[in-house]
């Protein structure tokens, strides 16, 4: 199983670090990619991750109303919503992609969210592109 997580370098990345420090466990096949702000993520990046064989993709932004760039996390949510529609249209399924809001003091959310995405993949099976690879 391959899960890609795009995470904002502010709240979410600190939560990931803290989860590591606390020894909270989450699936090792979850790879995080740090971005300056969730709003920096583009629909192209999300689709590309799936084309490269990701079974699921999650986007971690800061809590609503807590974005350092004011609207970055809300912009990210709009892009994720649009990308979900595209994934539905191509037949891969929008449920393989999700956006979550995480604050730096919520390390316990990281394993929760990782498990949520992993269980989604278990329910629907691996991405056909991942199998081919």
């Amino acid at each position, binding site marked *: 199983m391959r899960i890609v997580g795009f995470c904002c370098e502010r709240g979410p990345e600190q939560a990931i670090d803290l989860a590591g420090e606390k020894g909270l466990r989450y699936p090792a096949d979850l790879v995080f990619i740090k971005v300056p702000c969730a709003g920096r993520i*583009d*629909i192209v990046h999300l*689709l*590309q991750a799936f*084309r490269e064989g990701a079974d699921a993709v999650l986007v971690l932004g800061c809590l609503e109303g807590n974005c350092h760039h004011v609207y970055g996390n809300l912009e990210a949510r709009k892009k994720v919503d649009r990308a979900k529609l595209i994934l539905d*249209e*191509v*037949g891969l399924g929008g449920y393989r992609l999700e956006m979550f809001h995480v604050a730096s003091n919520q390390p316990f959310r990281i394993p929760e969210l990782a498990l949520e995405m992993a269980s989604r993949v278990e329910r629907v099976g691996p991405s056909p*592109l991942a199998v081919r690879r």
Partner: protein
Amino acid sequence: MIIGEQKSLSEIAAMLEGQRKILIAGCRSCVAICLVGGEKEVAVLAESLRLLSSLKGKGWEVEEVTVERQCEKEWATELGARVQGKDAVLSLACGVGAQTIQSMYPAVRVLPGLNTSNMGAPEEAGVFLERCGGCGDCVLHLTGGICPIARCAKSLLNGPCGGSQGGRCEISPETPCAWEEIHRSLERLGRLDLLEEPIPPKNWLPARDGGPRRIVRKEAVLTDEQKRAKGGRA
């Protein structure tokens, strides 16, 4: 500016069936402003098609290019090298741009990625409204700068119909009654007197009813010699 909407991915995929080398051609003018055919939208559509191709085994090789204005031959010339060897060009420009590149590169199939809708303007971020009917005989000087042809559902020229309710058109509560707006505008301008002068039945010949329109500015037309000096470009 020209407003368009992207066709659905399934429609585009159906058009591309049987093609292999595909060039998606965007346009940085009107369709980039209305967020359907600029560089960004070309990239998203290209990635969507690549994903679809990988999933369904379509075998598409998708390339991307965006020019300043597809509807002008000077800019569309930039596509030349990129069009070579392609089975199809998917144009994300308006219908004008798509036709221009089809006429310049007749050996390649040009497919429309957009449905061209109307001549309008951005009202707010993400909202685009029709503003001009292109009737060829403008009456904005009589109607307070509000076009009754494009903005009235019935294109009425002498006041609202019975469907105008509370300043809204009967076709949708989101559509303001053009004649309500015309009245308010003329009131603000202190020119309600203009409403007393009836506008006569409109001559629709300068509009689409007279057939495809051709406008010539004689002083700008090049002589054959000038065209030759410019390398054959008109």
